[in-house]
Protein backbone atom coordinates (compact mmCIF):
# COMPACT_ATOMS: atom_id res chain seq x y z
CA UNK A 1 0.00 0.00 0.00
CA UNK A 2 1.53 3.28 -1.08
CA UNK A 3 0.77 6.15 1.23
CA UNK A 4 -0.11 9.49 -0.32
CA UNK A 5 1.90 12.64 0.29
CA UNK A 6 -0.82 14.04 2.56
CA UNK A 7 -0.81 10.90 4.63
CA UNK A 8 2.94 11.01 4.97
CA UNK A 9 2.81 14.63 6.12
CA UNK A 10 0.25 13.77 8.75
CA UNK A 11 2.43 10.82 9.81
CA UNK A 12 5.24 13.29 10.43
CA UNK A 13 2.90 15.49 12.47
CA UNK A 14 1.88 12.45 14.55
CA UNK A 15 5.54 11.62 15.13
CA UNK A 16 6.33 15.17 16.23
CA UNK A 17 3.37 15.21 18.64
CA UNK A 18 4.42 11.84 20.05
CA UNK A 19 8.00 13.01 20.54
CA UNK A 20 6.84 16.18 22.25
CA UNK A 21 4.57 14.27 24.64
CA UNK A 22 7.29 11.74 25.40
CA UNK A 23 9.60 14.62 26.26
CA UNK A 24 7.02 16.28 28.54
CA UNK A 25 6.53 13.04 30.45
CA UNK A 26 10.21 12.17 30.54
CA UNK A 27 11.74 15.53 31.49
CA UNK A 28 10.75 15.56 35.19
CA UNK A 29 12.41 12.16 35.68
CA UNK A 30 15.46 13.22 33.67
CA UNK A 31 15.75 16.38 35.79
CA UNK A 32 15.69 14.21 38.91
CA UNK A 33 18.48 12.07 37.44
CA UNK A 34 20.43 15.17 36.44
CA UNK A 35 20.26 16.58 40.00
CA UNK A 36 21.17 13.23 41.52
CA UNK A 37 24.35 13.03 39.41
CA UNK A 38 25.60 16.52 40.29
CA UNK A 39 27.92 17.83 42.91
CA UNK A 40 26.53 20.48 45.22
CA UNK A 41 28.32 23.19 43.22
CA UNK A 42 26.70 22.08 39.98
CA UNK A 43 23.23 21.94 41.55
CA UNK A 44 23.46 25.72 41.96
CA UNK A 45 24.00 26.15 38.22
CA UNK A 46 20.41 25.10 37.50
CA UNK A 47 19.22 24.20 34.00
CA UNK A 48 22.50 25.37 32.43
CA UNK A 49 24.06 22.14 33.73
CA UNK A 50 21.29 19.78 32.69
CA UNK A 51 24.08 17.43 31.67
CA UNK A 52 26.52 17.60 34.58
CA UNK A 53 30.12 18.32 33.66
CA UNK A 54 31.46 16.36 36.58
CA UNK A 55 28.88 13.61 37.09
CA UNK A 56 29.21 11.76 40.36
CA UNK A 57 27.68 8.68 41.95
CA UNK A 58 28.56 9.91 45.43
CA UNK A 59 24.97 10.95 46.14
CA UNK A 60 23.65 7.48 45.42
CA UNK A 61 26.48 5.95 47.42
CA UNK A 62 25.82 8.07 50.46
CA UNK A 63 22.07 7.37 50.35
CA UNK A 64 22.62 3.63 49.90
CA UNK A 65 25.25 3.51 52.64
CA UNK A 66 22.75 4.98 55.07
CA UNK A 67 21.43 2.13 57.22
CA UNK A 68 18.07 3.86 57.45
CA UNK A 69 17.53 3.76 53.69
CA UNK A 70 18.03 0.01 53.55
CA UNK A 71 15.51 -0.52 56.30
CA UNK A 72 12.97 1.76 54.56
CA UNK A 73 13.28 -0.24 51.33
CA UNK A 74 13.04 -3.54 53.19
CA UNK A 75 9.94 -2.31 55.06
CA UNK A 76 8.34 -1.23 51.77
CA UNK A 77 9.07 -4.58 50.11
CA UNK A 78 7.67 -6.44 53.11
CA UNK A 79 4.49 -4.38 53.47
CA UNK A 80 3.84 -4.25 49.70
CA UNK A 81 4.38 -7.97 49.08
CA UNK A 82 2.50 -9.21 52.14
CA UNK A 83 -0.33 -6.76 51.46
CA UNK A 84 -0.58 -7.86 47.83
CA UNK A 85 -0.44 -11.58 48.68
CA UNK A 86 -3.04 -11.09 51.41
CA UNK A 87 -5.37 -9.19 49.11
CA UNK A 88 -5.18 -11.92 46.45
CA UNK A 89 -5.63 -14.62 49.12
CA UNK A 90 -8.72 -13.00 50.62
CA UNK A 91 -10.22 -12.01 47.27
CA UNK A 92 -9.77 -15.30 45.38
CA UNK A 93 -12.50 -17.37 47.10
CA UNK A 94 -14.99 -14.50 46.91
CA UNK A 95 -14.17 -13.88 43.25
CA UNK A 96 -14.65 -17.61 42.59
CA UNK A 97 -18.09 -17.52 44.23
CA UNK A 98 -19.07 -14.46 42.15
CA UNK A 99 -17.86 -16.19 39.00
CA UNK A 100 -19.27 -19.70 39.55
CA UNK A 101 -22.32 -19.56 41.84
CA UNK A 102 -25.62 -17.92 41.09
CA UNK A 103 -27.35 -16.45 44.11
CA UNK A 104 -29.72 -13.66 44.94
CA UNK A 105 -28.26 -10.18 45.31
CA UNK A 106 -25.05 -11.06 43.47
CA UNK A 107 -25.08 -7.99 41.22
CA UNK A 108 -25.87 -5.71 44.13
CA UNK A 109 -23.03 -7.25 46.16
CA UNK A 110 -20.55 -6.74 43.32
CA UNK A 111 -21.59 -3.10 43.03
CA UNK A 112 -21.40 -2.72 46.79
CA UNK A 113 -17.83 -3.98 46.73
CA UNK A 114 -16.98 -1.50 43.99
CA UNK A 115 -18.55 1.38 45.88
CA UNK A 116 -16.41 0.56 48.90
CA UNK A 117 -13.57 1.97 46.80
CA UNK A 118 -15.26 5.33 47.01
CA UNK A 119 -14.70 5.55 50.75
CA UNK A 120 -11.71 7.78 51.33
CA UNK A 121 -8.88 6.37 53.37
CA UNK A 122 -9.35 9.33 55.68
CA UNK A 123 -12.93 8.37 56.61
CA UNK A 124 -11.97 4.91 57.74
CA UNK A 125 -8.48 5.59 59.04
CA UNK A 126 -9.70 7.86 61.81
CA UNK A 127 -11.80 5.14 63.50
CA UNK A 128 -9.33 2.41 62.48
CA UNK A 129 -6.55 4.30 64.24
CA UNK A 130 -8.52 4.02 67.48
CA UNK A 131 -9.50 0.41 66.81
CA UNK A 132 -5.91 -0.70 66.16
CA UNK A 133 -4.81 1.31 69.18
CA UNK A 134 -7.21 -0.62 71.42
CA UNK A 135 -6.06 -3.92 69.90
CA UNK A 136 -2.42 -2.95 70.46
CA UNK A 137 -1.73 -3.16 66.71
CA UNK A 138 -0.73 0.47 66.24
CA UNK A 139 2.94 0.94 65.35
CA UNK A 140 3.12 -2.66 64.09
CA UNK A 141 3.74 -3.98 60.60
CA UNK A 142 1.10 -6.65 61.24
CA UNK A 143 -1.67 -4.11 61.78
CA UNK A 144 -0.44 -1.99 58.87
CA UNK A 145 -0.39 -5.01 56.55
CA UNK A 146 -4.01 -5.77 57.47
CA UNK A 147 -4.93 -2.27 56.30
CA UNK A 148 -2.99 -2.72 53.05
CA UNK A 149 -4.91 -5.96 52.47
CA UNK A 150 -8.25 -4.30 53.18
CA UNK A 151 -7.35 -1.47 50.79
CA UNK A 152 -6.59 -3.95 47.99
CA UNK A 153 -9.38 -6.52 48.40
CA UNK A 154 -12.28 -4.73 46.61
CA UNK A 155 -10.46 -4.13 43.31
CA UNK A 156 -8.82 -7.54 43.52
CA UNK A 157 -12.20 -9.30 43.83
CA UNK A 158 -13.27 -7.63 40.57
CA UNK A 159 -10.04 -8.41 38.75
CA UNK A 160 -10.07 -12.07 39.81
CA UNK A 161 -13.75 -12.51 38.97
CA UNK A 162 -12.98 -11.33 35.44
CA UNK A 163 -10.03 -13.75 35.30
CA UNK A 164 -12.12 -16.72 36.58
CA UNK A 165 -14.89 -15.90 34.10
CA UNK A 166 -12.54 -16.68 31.23
CA UNK A 167 -11.95 -20.25 32.45
CA UNK A 168 -14.54 -22.66 31.06
CA UNK A 169 -17.16 -23.84 33.53
CA UNK A 170 -17.06 -27.26 31.82
CA UNK A 171 -13.72 -27.97 33.50
CA UNK A 172 -15.40 -27.62 36.90
CA UNK A 173 -18.19 -29.94 35.76
CA UNK A 174 -15.70 -32.53 34.52
CA UNK A 175 -13.89 -32.33 37.86
CA UNK A 176 -17.19 -32.89 39.68
CA UNK A 177 -17.80 -36.04 37.64
CA UNK A 178 -14.33 -37.22 38.64
CA UNK A 179 -15.42 -36.81 42.25
CA UNK A 180 -13.54 -33.64 43.12
CA UNK A 181 -15.15 -31.33 45.66
CA UNK A 182 -15.72 -27.65 44.91
CA UNK A 183 -12.69 -26.74 46.99
CA UNK A 184 -10.50 -29.27 45.23
CA UNK A 185 -11.53 -28.16 41.76
CA UNK A 186 -10.97 -24.51 42.80
CA UNK A 187 -7.48 -25.24 44.15
CA UNK A 188 -6.36 -27.82 41.57
CA UNK A 189 -8.02 -26.62 38.38
CA UNK A 190 -9.28 -23.03 38.44
CA UNK A 191 -6.43 -21.39 40.36
CA UNK A 192 -3.57 -22.84 38.25
CA UNK A 193 -5.41 -21.95 35.02
CA UNK A 194 -6.09 -18.43 36.31
CA UNK A 195 -2.40 -17.91 37.16
CA UNK A 196 -1.96 -15.01 34.68
CA UNK A 197 -4.92 -13.18 36.24
CA UNK A 198 -3.62 -13.88 39.75
CA UNK A 199 -0.18 -12.56 38.82
CA UNK A 200 -1.66 -9.42 37.22
CA UNK A 201 -3.71 -8.71 40.34
CA UNK A 202 -0.72 -9.35 42.61
CA UNK A 203 1.53 -7.00 40.64
CA UNK A 204 -1.07 -4.24 40.45
CA UNK A 205 -1.48 -4.48 44.23
CA UNK A 206 2.30 -4.48 44.63
CA UNK A 207 2.65 -1.23 42.67
CA UNK A 208 -0.27 0.46 44.45
CA UNK A 209 1.14 -0.63 47.82
CA UNK A 210 4.57 0.75 46.94
CA UNK A 211 2.86 4.15 46.56
CA UNK A 212 0.84 3.79 49.75
CA UNK A 213 1.46 6.78 51.98
CA UNK A 214 -1.53 7.60 54.15
CA UNK A 215 -1.81 4.26 55.98
CA UNK A 216 1.83 3.98 57.15
CA UNK A 217 2.05 7.75 57.72
CA UNK A 218 -0.78 7.53 60.24
CA UNK A 219 -0.14 4.08 61.72
CA UNK A 220 3.65 4.07 62.12
CA UNK A 221 5.53 6.78 63.98
CA UNK A 222 8.83 4.98 64.61
CA UNK A 223 11.56 5.73 62.06
CA UNK A 224 12.70 2.09 61.81
CA UNK A 225 9.18 0.93 60.83
CA UNK A 226 8.64 3.41 57.98
CA UNK A 227 8.29 2.46 54.35
CA UNK A 228 10.14 4.60 51.80
CA UNK A 229 7.14 6.86 51.01
CA UNK A 230 6.95 8.14 54.58
CA UNK A 231 10.72 8.36 54.93
CA UNK A 232 11.16 10.35 51.72
CA UNK A 233 8.43 12.78 52.77
CA UNK A 234 10.13 13.35 56.12
CA UNK A 235 13.49 13.69 54.38
CA UNK A 236 12.10 16.27 51.94
CA UNK A 237 10.71 18.26 54.87
CA UNK A 238 14.13 18.36 56.53
CA UNK A 239 16.03 18.94 53.29
CA UNK A 240 17.59 22.26 52.30
CA UNK A 241 19.08 23.74 49.14
CA UNK A 242 22.46 22.32 50.11
CA UNK A 243 21.12 18.74 50.16
CA UNK A 244 19.03 18.94 46.97
CA UNK A 245 21.26 16.44 45.14
CA UNK A 246 20.87 13.93 47.99
CA UNK A 247 17.10 14.36 48.03
CA UNK A 248 17.02 13.78 44.26
CA UNK A 249 19.15 10.64 44.59
CA UNK A 250 16.98 9.28 47.44
CA UNK A 251 13.81 10.09 45.50
CA UNK A 252 15.11 8.35 42.39
CA UNK A 253 16.15 5.27 44.37
CA UNK A 254 12.71 5.23 46.02
CA UNK A 255 10.84 5.15 42.71
CA UNK A 256 13.34 2.94 40.87
CA UNK A 257 12.05 -0.42 42.17
CA UNK A 258 8.47 0.47 41.21
CA UNK A 259 9.62 1.71 37.78
CA UNK A 260 11.70 -1.43 37.21
CA UNK A 261 8.87 -3.77 38.19
CA UNK A 262 6.58 -1.78 35.93
CA UNK A 263 8.82 -1.78 32.87
CA UNK A 264 9.62 -5.48 33.17
CA UNK A 265 6.08 -6.60 33.97
CA UNK A 266 4.21 -3.99 31.93
CA UNK A 267 2.21 -6.62 30.09
CA UNK A 268 0.63 -7.92 33.31
CA UNK A 269 -0.19 -4.48 34.66
CA UNK A 270 -1.81 -3.39 31.40
CA UNK A 271 -3.81 -6.63 31.38
CA UNK A 272 -5.15 -5.82 34.86
CA UNK A 273 -5.95 -2.20 33.98
CA UNK A 274 -7.60 -3.08 30.67
CA UNK A 275 -9.67 -5.86 32.27
CA UNK A 276 -10.99 -3.26 34.68
CA UNK A 277 -11.59 -0.79 31.84
CA UNK A 278 -13.65 -3.17 29.74
CA UNK A 279 -15.71 -4.42 32.66
CA UNK A 280 -16.51 -0.96 34.01
Amino acid at each position, binding site marked *: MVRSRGERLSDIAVYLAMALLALVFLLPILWLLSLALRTQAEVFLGAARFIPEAPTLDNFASVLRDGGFQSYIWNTVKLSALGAAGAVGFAA*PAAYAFSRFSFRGKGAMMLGILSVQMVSGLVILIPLY*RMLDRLGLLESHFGTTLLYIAAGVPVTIWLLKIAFDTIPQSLDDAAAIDGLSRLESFLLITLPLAAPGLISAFILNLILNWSQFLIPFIMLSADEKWPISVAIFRF*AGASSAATTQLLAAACLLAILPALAVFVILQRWILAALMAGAVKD
Partner: protein
Amino acid sequence: MQREQPGRAALPWLLPSFLLLALFYLYPVFEALRLAFTDARLFDATTTLSLGSITGLWGSAPLATVLRNTLAYTLGSVLGQLALGLCIALLVVRAERARLRGTLVLRTIVLAAWVIPAIANGIIWQLLFSEAPFGAINSALRLIGLAPVAWLSDPGNAMISAILATIWQGTAYSMILLYAALRSIDQSLYEAAAIDNATGFERFWFITLPHLRPALLVNAILIMIMTLNMFDTVLALTGGGPGRATEVLSLFAYNTVFRGFELGRGAALSLLLLVISLVLTVCLTLLLPKGRK
Protein backbone atom coordinates in the same frame (compact mmCIF):
# COMPACT_ATOMS: atom_id res chain seq x y z
CA MET B 1 -24.13 -28.60 37.12
CA GLN B 2 -24.76 -27.31 40.62
CA ARG B 3 -24.25 -29.82 43.37
CA GLU B 4 -25.29 -27.64 46.29
CA GLN B 5 -27.98 -25.24 47.34
CA PRO B 6 -26.50 -22.29 45.44
CA GLY B 7 -27.10 -19.46 47.91
CA ARG B 8 -25.82 -21.28 50.94
CA ALA B 9 -22.92 -22.78 49.02
CA ALA B 10 -21.51 -19.35 48.18
CA LEU B 11 -21.44 -18.19 51.80
CA PRO B 12 -18.21 -19.82 53.02
CA TRP B 13 -16.41 -18.53 49.93
CA LEU B 14 -17.57 -14.98 50.51
CA LEU B 15 -17.18 -14.92 54.27
CA PRO B 16 -13.44 -14.05 54.63
CA SER B 17 -13.67 -11.03 52.32
CA PHE B 18 -16.97 -9.89 53.76
CA LEU B 19 -15.69 -10.05 57.33
CA LEU B 20 -12.63 -8.08 56.28
CA LEU B 21 -14.69 -5.44 54.48
CA ALA B 22 -17.15 -5.20 57.38
CA LEU B 23 -14.34 -4.74 59.89
CA PHE B 24 -12.25 -2.31 57.84
CA TYR B 25 -14.92 -0.34 55.93
CA LEU B 26 -18.41 -0.76 57.34
CA TYR B 27 -17.55 -0.46 61.01
CA PRO B 28 -15.26 2.57 60.50
CA VAL B 29 -17.85 4.42 58.40
CA PHE B 30 -20.50 4.00 61.11
CA GLU B 31 -17.95 4.85 63.77
CA ALA B 32 -17.02 8.00 61.82
CA LEU B 33 -20.70 8.87 61.69
CA ARG B 34 -20.95 8.44 65.46
CA LEU B 35 -17.78 10.46 66.05
CA ALA B 36 -19.08 13.30 63.90
CA PHE B 37 -21.86 13.75 66.44
CA THR B 38 -19.42 14.05 69.34
CA ASP B 39 -16.73 16.47 70.37
CA ALA B 40 -14.14 13.68 70.50
CA ARG B 41 -10.47 14.57 70.50
CA LEU B 42 -7.73 12.26 69.27
CA PHE B 43 -5.98 11.47 72.56
CA ASP B 44 -8.92 11.89 74.91
CA ALA B 45 -11.22 9.02 75.78
CA THR B 46 -14.01 11.08 77.33
CA THR B 47 -16.45 12.41 74.78
CA THR B 48 -19.83 13.97 75.00
CA LEU B 49 -22.59 13.95 72.49
CA SER B 50 -22.64 17.21 70.61
CA LEU B 51 -23.64 18.71 67.33
CA GLY B 52 -20.80 21.19 67.62
CA SER B 53 -18.56 19.29 65.20
CA ILE B 54 -21.11 19.49 62.43
CA THR B 55 -22.68 22.87 63.09
CA GLY B 56 -19.26 24.37 63.73
CA LEU B 57 -18.26 23.57 60.16
CA TRP B 58 -20.88 25.67 58.46
CA GLY B 59 -20.01 29.26 58.00
CA SER B 60 -16.49 28.77 59.27
CA ALA B 61 -14.17 30.72 57.02
CA PRO B 62 -11.65 27.90 56.36
CA LEU B 63 -14.32 25.51 55.09
CA ALA B 64 -15.54 27.93 52.42
CA THR B 65 -11.97 28.47 51.20
CA VAL B 66 -11.21 24.77 51.37
CA LEU B 67 -14.32 23.86 49.36
CA ARG B 68 -13.45 26.43 46.70
CA ASN B 69 -9.92 24.98 46.53
CA THR B 70 -11.30 21.45 46.29
CA LEU B 71 -13.58 22.45 43.42
CA ALA B 72 -10.76 24.16 41.48
CA TYR B 73 -8.25 21.37 42.14
CA THR B 74 -10.62 18.51 41.31
CA LEU B 75 -12.18 20.13 38.25
CA GLY B 76 -8.81 21.24 36.86
CA SER B 77 -7.13 17.88 37.46
CA VAL B 78 -10.01 15.76 36.13
CA LEU B 79 -10.62 17.83 32.98
CA GLY B 80 -6.88 18.05 32.33
CA GLN B 81 -6.39 14.30 32.71
CA LEU B 82 -9.38 13.49 30.50
CA ALA B 83 -8.32 15.91 27.76
CA LEU B 84 -4.65 14.94 27.75
CA GLY B 85 -5.45 11.24 28.15
CA LEU B 86 -7.82 11.43 25.18
CA CYS B 87 -5.25 13.27 23.05
CA ILE B 88 -2.59 10.65 23.74
CA ALA B 89 -5.00 7.76 23.19
CA LEU B 90 -6.13 9.24 19.85
CA LEU B 91 -2.54 9.80 18.85
CA VAL B 92 -1.51 6.26 19.74
CA VAL B 93 -4.47 4.74 17.86
CA ARG B 94 -3.74 6.98 14.86
CA ALA B 95 -0.06 5.98 14.90
CA GLU B 96 -0.89 2.29 15.28
CA ARG B 97 -3.24 2.43 12.30
CA ALA B 98 -0.46 3.97 10.18
CA ARG B 99 1.88 1.29 11.58
CA LEU B 100 4.23 3.92 12.95
CA ARG B 101 6.75 2.68 15.45
CA GLY B 102 7.30 4.19 18.88
CA THR B 103 3.78 3.94 20.26
CA LEU B 104 4.91 1.41 22.84
CA VAL B 105 7.70 3.75 23.96
CA LEU B 106 5.29 6.67 24.39
CA ARG B 107 2.79 4.52 26.29
CA THR B 108 5.52 3.18 28.56
CA ILE B 109 6.84 6.66 29.35
CA VAL B 110 3.37 8.02 30.17
CA LEU B 111 2.58 5.00 32.33
CA ALA B 112 5.91 5.30 34.14
CA ALA B 113 4.70 8.62 35.59
CA TRP B 114 1.62 6.83 36.90
CA VAL B 115 3.76 4.27 38.73
CA ILE B 116 5.64 6.95 40.65
CA PRO B 117 4.26 7.23 44.21
CA ALA B 118 2.19 10.39 44.59
CA ILE B 119 4.33 11.55 47.48
CA ALA B 120 7.46 11.32 45.29
CA ASN B 121 5.52 13.09 42.54
CA GLY B 122 5.00 16.04 44.89
CA ILE B 123 8.71 16.12 45.72
CA ILE B 124 9.77 15.90 42.05
CA TRP B 125 7.51 18.81 41.09
CA GLN B 126 8.72 20.79 44.07
CA LEU B 127 12.23 20.45 42.64
CA LEU B 128 10.93 21.49 39.20
CA PHE B 129 8.91 24.47 40.42
CA SER B 130 11.57 25.52 42.93
CA GLU B 131 11.85 29.29 43.03
CA ALA B 132 15.49 29.22 44.04
CA PRO B 133 17.75 30.68 41.32
CA PHE B 134 18.71 27.14 40.33
CA GLY B 135 15.13 25.73 40.19
CA ALA B 136 14.54 23.70 37.02
CA ILE B 137 11.82 25.67 35.25
CA ASN B 138 12.85 29.12 36.43
CA SER B 139 16.52 28.67 35.54
CA ALA B 140 15.46 27.33 32.13
CA LEU B 141 13.24 30.40 31.65
CA ARG B 142 16.16 32.64 32.53
CA LEU B 143 18.36 30.83 30.00
CA ILE B 144 15.99 31.82 27.21
CA GLY B 145 15.65 35.34 28.58
CA LEU B 146 12.25 35.12 30.27
CA ALA B 147 11.36 36.32 33.76
CA PRO B 148 11.04 33.68 36.51
CA VAL B 149 7.55 32.74 37.72
CA ALA B 150 6.45 32.46 41.36
CA TRP B 151 5.19 28.88 40.86
CA LEU B 152 4.62 28.01 44.50
CA SER B 153 4.71 31.22 46.52
CA ASP B 154 1.90 32.98 44.62
CA PRO B 155 -1.50 31.63 45.80
CA GLY B 156 -3.06 31.52 42.31
CA ASN B 157 -0.01 29.96 40.68
CA ALA B 158 0.36 27.40 43.47
CA MET B 159 -3.04 25.91 42.63
CA ILE B 160 -2.13 25.74 38.94
CA SER B 161 1.19 24.10 39.83
CA ALA B 162 -0.58 21.50 41.99
CA ILE B 163 -3.02 20.75 39.16
CA LEU B 164 -0.17 20.42 36.61
CA ALA B 165 1.70 17.97 38.87
CA THR B 166 -1.47 15.92 39.37
CA ILE B 167 -2.24 15.83 35.64
CA TRP B 168 1.31 14.75 34.81
CA GLN B 169 1.02 11.77 37.12
CA GLY B 170 -2.60 10.74 36.59
CA THR B 171 -3.04 11.04 32.82
CA ALA B 172 -1.85 7.48 32.14
CA TYR B 173 -4.96 6.01 33.76
CA SER B 174 -7.31 7.98 31.48
CA MET B 175 -5.09 7.19 28.51
CA ILE B 176 -5.39 3.43 29.07
CA LEU B 177 -9.15 3.47 29.68
CA LEU B 178 -9.85 5.68 26.65
CA TYR B 179 -7.41 3.73 24.49
CA ALA B 180 -9.33 0.54 25.26
CA ALA B 181 -12.60 2.31 24.41
CA LEU B 182 -11.21 3.74 21.15
CA ARG B 183 -10.03 0.33 20.04
CA SER B 184 -13.51 -1.11 20.53
CA ILE B 185 -15.16 1.32 18.08
CA ASP B 186 -16.29 -0.46 14.93
CA GLN B 187 -13.88 0.47 12.12
CA SER B 188 -16.55 0.13 9.43
CA LEU B 189 -18.16 3.32 10.77
CA TYR B 190 -15.06 5.26 9.77
CA GLU B 191 -14.97 3.56 6.37
CA ALA B 192 -18.58 4.58 5.78
CA ALA B 193 -17.73 8.13 6.85
CA ALA B 194 -14.80 8.19 4.42
CA ILE B 195 -17.17 7.28 1.58
CA ASP B 196 -19.35 10.21 2.65
CA ASN B 197 -16.27 12.46 2.51
CA ALA B 198 -16.48 13.34 6.20
CA THR B 199 -13.66 15.58 7.48
CA GLY B 200 -11.41 14.48 10.30
CA PHE B 201 -13.24 16.75 12.70
CA GLU B 202 -16.65 15.42 11.61
CA ARG B 203 -15.49 11.85 12.12
CA PHE B 204 -14.27 12.75 15.61
CA TRP B 205 -17.41 14.70 16.52
CA PHE B 206 -20.06 12.35 15.09
CA ILE B 207 -18.44 8.93 15.51
CA THR B 208 -15.60 8.93 18.05
CA LEU B 209 -17.01 11.23 20.72
CA PRO B 210 -20.51 9.67 20.97
CA HIS B 211 -18.97 6.20 21.22
CA LEU B 212 -16.56 7.38 23.89
CA ARG B 213 -19.26 8.98 26.04
CA PRO B 214 -19.73 6.04 28.44
CA ALA B 215 -15.97 5.53 28.81
CA LEU B 216 -15.41 9.24 29.37
CA LEU B 217 -18.11 9.40 32.04
CA VAL B 218 -16.94 6.28 33.87
CA ASN B 219 -13.39 7.56 33.67
CA ALA B 220 -14.50 10.97 34.99
CA ILE B 221 -16.27 9.34 37.95
CA LEU B 222 -13.27 7.20 38.85
CA ILE B 223 -10.62 9.90 38.67
CA MET B 224 -12.87 12.46 40.32
CA ILE B 225 -13.22 10.22 43.36
CA MET B 226 -9.50 9.46 43.31
CA THR B 227 -8.63 13.17 43.07
CA LEU B 228 -11.07 14.17 45.80
CA ASN B 229 -9.64 11.63 48.20
CA MET B 230 -5.97 11.93 47.40
CA PHE B 231 -3.79 14.52 49.03
CA ASP B 232 -0.26 13.05 48.84
CA THR B 233 0.79 15.19 45.89
CA VAL B 234 -0.49 18.44 47.37
CA LEU B 235 0.93 17.61 50.80
CA ALA B 236 4.42 17.04 49.40
CA LEU B 237 4.28 19.88 46.88
CA THR B 238 2.81 22.81 48.80
CA GLY B 239 1.65 21.42 52.15
CA GLY B 240 -1.61 23.25 51.46
CA GLY B 241 0.05 26.65 51.24
CA PRO B 242 0.84 29.41 50.73
CA GLY B 243 -1.63 30.20 53.50
CA ARG B 244 -4.58 27.98 52.68
CA ALA B 245 -4.29 28.51 48.90
CA THR B 246 -4.01 24.82 48.02
CA GLU B 247 -5.56 23.21 51.10
CA VAL B 248 -8.11 20.76 49.67
CA LEU B 249 -10.84 19.03 51.69
CA SER B 250 -8.94 15.76 52.23
CA LEU B 251 -5.87 17.64 53.45
CA PHE B 252 -8.03 19.88 55.65
CA ALA B 253 -9.68 16.80 57.22
CA TYR B 254 -6.26 15.26 57.80
CA ASN B 255 -4.90 18.44 59.41
CA THR B 256 -7.99 18.77 61.60
CA VAL B 257 -7.55 15.28 63.06
CA PHE B 258 -3.83 14.70 63.14
CA ARG B 259 -2.60 18.25 63.73
CA GLY B 260 -5.55 19.88 65.48
CA PHE B 261 -6.50 16.58 67.22
CA GLU B 262 -10.19 17.42 66.71
CA LEU B 263 -11.45 13.93 65.99
CA GLY B 264 -15.15 14.78 65.87
CA ARG B 265 -14.75 17.65 63.44
CA GLY B 266 -12.33 15.65 61.28
CA ALA B 267 -14.81 12.78 61.10
CA ALA B 268 -17.52 15.21 60.02
CA LEU B 269 -15.21 16.59 57.31
CA SER B 270 -14.27 13.13 56.05
CA LEU B 271 -17.97 12.23 55.85
CA LEU B 272 -18.56 15.40 53.85
CA LEU B 273 -15.93 14.05 51.46
CA LEU B 274 -17.84 10.77 51.22
CA VAL B 275 -21.16 12.55 50.61
CA ILE B 276 -19.64 14.66 47.82
CA SER B 277 -18.19 11.50 46.21
CA LEU B 278 -21.57 9.75 46.41
CA VAL B 279 -23.52 12.68 44.98
CA LEU B 280 -21.08 13.12 42.09
CA THR B 281 -21.18 9.42 41.30
CA VAL B 282 -24.98 9.35 41.24
CA CYS B 283 -25.10 12.46 39.02
CA LEU B 284 -22.61 11.10 36.52
CA THR B 285 -24.20 7.64 36.51
CA LEU B 286 -27.50 9.24 35.52
CA LEU B 287 -25.77 10.63 32.43
CA LEU B 288 -24.73 7.15 31.30
CA PRO B 289 -26.72 5.64 28.43
CA LYS B 290 -29.18 2.99 29.60
CA GLY B 291 -27.91 -0.55 29.67
CA ARG B 292 -24.44 0.54 30.70
CA LYS B 293 -25.32 1.07 34.34
